[in-house]
């Protein structure tokens, strides 16, 4: 304990990284608060669980399909994906290194023994309710409160009382979905995808795999073969969803992979804001999470998809943690549609994730706002793809990466303008910050332009602090140094202001983050 050679007062300073002066102290603290030793969601729940046979085979897939009582076409669909997956190779181009995954060492399906879906919230096992409560998602209270206040009659009334409907996914099954009846009044379908397969087979059949095809990439194909549960949302024409929808994913069982599949469809002129949260217990083994999210926005529709990803990142020596290999893609299929991704990434041992927008409809808009914070030995390779196909399509990418400890944080993004995308526009801004000397920050933008009238800009803003803004602040009597700090600190807020209110708590600690001293 006397590595400083001094008194005990110095002990807490031992092992502290040297951080260069220009980096804001609060930023360092905020990053530290996200270290794995402070991981508050790391408890596990003891509950009897049913597993599929260990490993991946046709049998496992048949087991999953049977457990969910799926129609024949879906089983066929799964088996086709599995066949394809066997011929595919795991991608190695991302800037992440991890031990070879033994796909036969995982359970591909784990469900609480008491059954998958419960008729009412009262039937949900106590352990599970407690788990969600501990994570700050009181499923029961939400329903009870609704009862006390009396049901809200109209969608308009519902909008005035902001609440969140939650689909809670525990390992491989959805255990509860709140406010369903409430949403139904507005015509909104919000349920687990397993239920939707039975209740709305036509919709599922029409849209499943239409944005992320079965054979899209190695992990998406794996997901297509074994996906367990996830959320299905359909917003009918002209409806503005009366409340925030959310799914809370919890991985609990050991040696289990979670493979959820989310499908959100916003019909013409519909509007929805959807939130996603993820946590997992502290375990020594690596766990696999390979999800697929598909968004479809028709004419004039708008989807806002927010994620706070806080999977167990592994301890500071790199033991355990979630491998987060996720395919998220939105299809702006209709004219004037808009899809906006906002993500706060603080968890996972390895992240491989590129939420993308296919801007197919004329005048459609894609947005991507991201903060990725890595600590310990975390590795994140994340970014977005904006594929401009329609006329006058616009996209904006704001990405902030903060690396600390021995972590590596990579932004990888593609902006592609098709030959027919008249007057496409993109603005990309990505900044990265290193806290300490043992981490890495990388930026790999790909820009493909096939239009003379497209306007594409990629900037590292640190070099381009607006003189006008600076002048304005100084002219108001703010000293230059403070003015610079003020403006630079505004960076991260760009992203946070796009997070829904419900994530205010998570966002609170990140608000202290500034990108002062960023390297490019």
């Amino acid at each position: 304990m006397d590595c400083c050679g001094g008194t005990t007062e110095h002990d807490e300073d031992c092992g502290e990284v040297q951080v260069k002066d220009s980096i804001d102290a609060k930023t360092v603290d905020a990053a530290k608060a996200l270290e794995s030793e402070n991981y508050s969601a790391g408890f596990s729940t003891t509950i009897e669980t049913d597993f599929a046979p260990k490993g991946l085979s046709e049998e496992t897939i048949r087991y999953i399909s049977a457990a969910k009582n799926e129609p024949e076409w879906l089983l066929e669909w799964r088996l086709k994906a599995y066949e394809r997956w066997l011929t595919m190779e795991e991608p190695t181009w991302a800037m992440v290194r991890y031990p070879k995954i033994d796909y036969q060492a995982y359970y591909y399906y784990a469900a609480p023994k008491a059954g998958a879906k419960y008729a009412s919230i009262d039937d949900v096992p106590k352990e599970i309710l407690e788990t969600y409560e501990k994570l700050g998602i009181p499923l029961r209270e939400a329903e009870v409160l609704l009862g006390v206040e009396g049901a809200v009659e109209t969608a308009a009334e519902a909008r005035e009382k902001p609440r969140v409907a939650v689909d809670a996914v525990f390992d491989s099954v959805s255990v509860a979905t709140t406010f369903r009846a409430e949403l139904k009044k507005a015509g909104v379908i919000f349920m687990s995808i397993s239920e939707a397969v039975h209740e709305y087979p036509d919709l599922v059949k029409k849209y499943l795999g239409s944005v992320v095809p079965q054979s899209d990439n190695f992990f998406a194909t794996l997901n297509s073969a074994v996906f367990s549960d996830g959320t299905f949302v359909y917003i009918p024409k002209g409806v503005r969803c009366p409340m925030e929808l959310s799914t809370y994913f919890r991985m609990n069982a050991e040696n289990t992979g979670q493979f959820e599949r989310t499908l959100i469809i916003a019909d013409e002129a519909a509007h929805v804001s959807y939130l996603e949260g993820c946590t997992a217990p502290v375990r020594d083994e690596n766990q696999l999470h390979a999800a697929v999210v598909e968004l479809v926005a028709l004419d004039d529709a708008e989807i806002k998809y927010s994620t706070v990803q806080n999977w167990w990142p592994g301890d500071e020596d790199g033991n355990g943690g979630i491998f987060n290999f996720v395919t998220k893609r939105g299809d702006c299929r209709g004219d004037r549609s808009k899809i906006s991704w906002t993500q706060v990434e603080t968890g996972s041992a390895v992240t491989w994730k590129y939420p993308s927008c296919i801007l197919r409809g004329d005048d459609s808009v894609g947005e991507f706002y991201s903060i990725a914070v890595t600590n310990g030995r975390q590795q994140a390779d994340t970014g977005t793809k904006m594929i401009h196909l329609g006329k006058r399509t616009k996209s904006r990418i704001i990405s902030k990466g903060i690396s600390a400890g021995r972590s590596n944080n990579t932004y990888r993004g593609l902006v592609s303008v098709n030959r027919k995308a008249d007057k496409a526009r993109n603005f990309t801004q990505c900044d990265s910050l290193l806290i300490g000397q043992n981490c890495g920050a990388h930026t790999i933008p790909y820009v493909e332009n096939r239009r003379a009238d497209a306007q594409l800009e990629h900037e590292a803003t640190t070099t381009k602090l607006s003189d006008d803004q600076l002048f304005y602040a100084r002219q108001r009597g703010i000293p230059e140094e403070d003015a610079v700090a003020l403006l630079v600190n505004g960076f991260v807020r760009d992203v946070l202001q796009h997070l829904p209110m419900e994530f205010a708590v998570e966002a609170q600690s990140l608000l202290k983050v500034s990108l002062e001293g960023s390297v490019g």
Partner: protein
Amino acid sequence: MTTALRDFIRNPTAAELELVARYGMQPEDARRERAFLAFAETGLPHRRMEAWKWSDFRASLKSLDRPKQAAIPDPLPHDGALVFRFTPSGFAYPKTLPSGISMLAKREVQAFSSAEDLPLGALTAALAGSDSKPATLLFEISGRDLPRLHFVFEGAGEASFSRVVFLLRPNAELVVTESHLGGVGMASALSEFTLEAGAKLTRTIYQRSGPEDAIGIASTLTLDAGAAVTQTTLAFGAKVSRLETRVVHRQPGAHLTLNAAYLAGKGFHADITSHVRHGAPECVTRQLTKGAVLDGGTGVFQGKFLVPRITGQHTDADMQHQVLLLEDGAQVFAKPELEIYADDVQCAHGNTSGALDDAQLFYLRQRGIPERQARGMLTEAFIAEALETADETVRDVMLAEAQDWLAS
């Protein structure tokens, strides 16, 4: 040699078989073999290789043929310069060289340490040399105020491979100009520069060829303490072309300026790729690449700064790529990349692509300048910025060449 020649490359194309045959005719040499094996690992670079996704030599170069169009006449002045001329089979050089410049034409291949990173460089190292052409041409530079060295790469033939190695002794100063003029089915040149402490190099590259040529220009630059390099390129591309520069800042305080302008017309492909490793503290890199592309033309820019842990501290590096797509049907691919492991550094990168600024155009037209002329003026000014660092003996010619292209 235990491997049968045809087994060197998997599923070879006609062009690759021809390259293997050419290798088979070279004298046996362990270093040559190592270089060729490094190339044969992948064969001609193709789109499935991450670093070559936008410059597919294998697909563009099915076989090695002599192009219809002869080499372009060299626009760069030869006055006052020592001229070295490489053709597919020959090599011409001045009979006498001033003190401070010594030259050695070697029949043996010198080891090429970047073979894995530069497949076309490895191919060049393996195939350079013939009865009348050195396998490695070595220069040792130890003075200042030396005449300019001008290298011409041209001629008629199916393929030409040329390799030049420079060593600049402490505080030496050298001006090198190069004209890569085509006329060859596949012309590939490899240049390696090592600058010892305080040495200074000004290198200016002009590349132009016909629409059937494949051009590879691979270079490595290694900078010791306080060394300075200014490299300026003007490239018009070819059927497929790649100008790739790999730089290592090996000791503190080195300074690099890496500028390029590319102009790609219909059927032309111009690729400017660079990789700069800040392997020592307090080194500076300034990189500006400008491009203008017409209908049917393709521009590629790939830049990378690698800043290693600890040794790269206090790096000051800036990378800018700006390109104008002058007509519909033009395409541009860019990847300005940063890989940073040191926390106290300044690395910026910017990438813009689009059409001319309407406001600027309006301003000029409103002053009575016809639209066509206004466009020409603005594009010219845009491109000229990247050529300002060219050596003064050739700068005006380079600007005039760019102007002529834009005017036509």
